[in-house]
């Protein structure tokens, strides 16, 4: 079973984000870049499928030179090969452009399953997996909280607005996994050393036959970024036994009790 997993290098989600005042793009220089923590679940899910059914895990990423770090981390966890698509003009790409680039990179070789996170931690549009599935002409089992396979089909539990549903999907297909779907492994020292020797293909959009994608007129343009109206912090008190009473007073003041 050949599994492709999409990963992204993002500014550490635990640091405060900021947009560049003139370009309206995320200031990626302010926070330590890391493999998106949401993607670690996808890498783990991919490794487990391949451990159960054979085949290999291929990591695909779009991003600047530094995104190689995200690819290397997935390789250190156990993926076999990597692909990184870079082009300065892809900076600030919208969801549709991102999906086009990933689809072109993935479609170069046959695959059984493509795994993504449900959304990235920095852009979080949450529509790249679905757009990617459409371009690859496969079904998308999105928001999966559990994934298993017998080698010929995939069984997944997925979140819905009101609960969950169990899906059986024929291969090939795409799965987007939620955080918590598994417990991602830590790369071993051997894995980290070995990752440096694993092959990573470096492509430009032109190499993939989609050179026109980079730098084409965007379908959407940011016209302004302003500070939201701040919620003012109220009173902060240290609980010395009357914290609960203070809450009751507040509840009474707005007449909910």
């Amino acid at each position, binding site marked *: 079973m050949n599994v492709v997993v999409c990963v992204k290098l993002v500014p550490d989600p635990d640091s405060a984000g900021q947009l560049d005042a003139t370009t309206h793009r995320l200031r990626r220089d302010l926070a330590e870049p890391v493999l998106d923590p949401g993607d670690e679940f996808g890498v783990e899910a991919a490794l487990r499928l391949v451990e159960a059914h054979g085949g290999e895990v291929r990591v695909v990423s779009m991003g600047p030179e530094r995104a190689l770090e995200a690819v290397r981390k997935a390789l250190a966890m156990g993926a076999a090969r990597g692909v990184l698509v870079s082009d300065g003009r892809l900076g600030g790409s919208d969801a549709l452009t991102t999906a086009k680039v990933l689809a072109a990179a993935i479609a170069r070789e046959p695959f059984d399953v493509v795994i993504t996170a449900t959304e990235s931690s920095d852009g979080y549009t949450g529509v790249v997996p679905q757009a990617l599935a459409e371009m690859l002409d496969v079904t998308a*089992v999105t928001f999966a909280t559990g994934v298993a396979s017998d080698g010929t089909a995939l069984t997944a539990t997925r979140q819905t*607005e009101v609960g969950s549903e169990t899906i059986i999907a024929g291969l090939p297909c795409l799965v987007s996994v939620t955080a918590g779907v598994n417990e991602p492994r830590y790369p071993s020292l051997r894995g980290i050393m070995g990752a440096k020797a694993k092959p990573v293909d470096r492509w430009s959009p032109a190499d993939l036959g989609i050179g026109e994608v980079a730098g084409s007129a965007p*379908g959407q343009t940011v016209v302004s970024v302003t500070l939201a109206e701040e919620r003012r912090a109220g009173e902060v008190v240290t609980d010395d036994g009357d914290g609960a009473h203070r*809450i009751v007073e507040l509840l009474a003041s707005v007449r909910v009790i």
Partner: protein
Amino acid sequence: MALRSVWVFAELRQGRATTETLELLTKARSLGAAAVEAVCFGPRAVDAAAELGRYGATTVHLSSDPAFAELLFGGPAADTLAALVVPHPPDLILFAATHAGRDVAGRLAAKLDVPVIANGLDVEAGDAITVTTAIFGATQVVRTEFGGRRPALALIRPKSFPAEAAPGAISPGLVEVPAVIRECHRRATVVARSDEVAAGPRLEDAEVVVSGGRGIQEAGNFELLREVAELLHGAVGASRAVVDAGWAPYSLQVGQTGRTVKPTVYIACGISGAMQHTVGMRGAQKIVAINKDPQAPIFKLADLGIVGDAPTVLRQLRDELRSRPG
């Protein structure tokens, strides 16, 4: 630029249009388009048509094909919608930022090669169609304009607008459309479905929400949240961290990837206040936070912050509420 038509992608729950759908129709009416129409796919689509009309849809394009419930919904829904859109593209299609909304809008954008903007909080139609989104835990507001390709697709977060019936609405025209189901989508079937039913008011409708995060320390302490919520006739919520840890079901998750709530009072218990969470609750009228860490970001939003042990304060709160007369 006057809009010719705005469509709303309607979602169904137990044969009724969801509240989010009605919110979108209310907004669509205000954009000054010549026509507001709805699209509704599902075995009980007909049951919802009259309600869609009351909220302003003059035409409802519907398919009652049972396949929409038997198969993974997103693929067939996007294909059926695309078949409707291509001959007469509307200027704008509004989707709710739900699981189904994202599944359909994401695929449709790729299919038609048109732009999609996610996480919208508002949409305006002037010289261009502009969508407002919030980033970095809703501390900054971004306005994004669609380029010329049509239809523009916007995913709007629930509770961004009130849902108000249209004055003098008439019965909508119903147009049955054939479901478009490609072979690859026939091979993804729903074999089981389970809805989580919670006692008390729905999370989105509750006047008081009592939410727990890691700081409630163990899964068993969710019972405390339930007891306090019940005494207040409210609902229980959860942070993503505890949902991921399996302490609470996803249906209780508040935040970017969960529910958006706007209660009168939101009580955050042991929740640090990550952006992922605050974006789903900062619209509450009053916010109460209980957290051990005086530096927790949640205190910057709270009207009342209690620095203390969340389970201890919750127990005392429960006992005091129980002892109140009446």
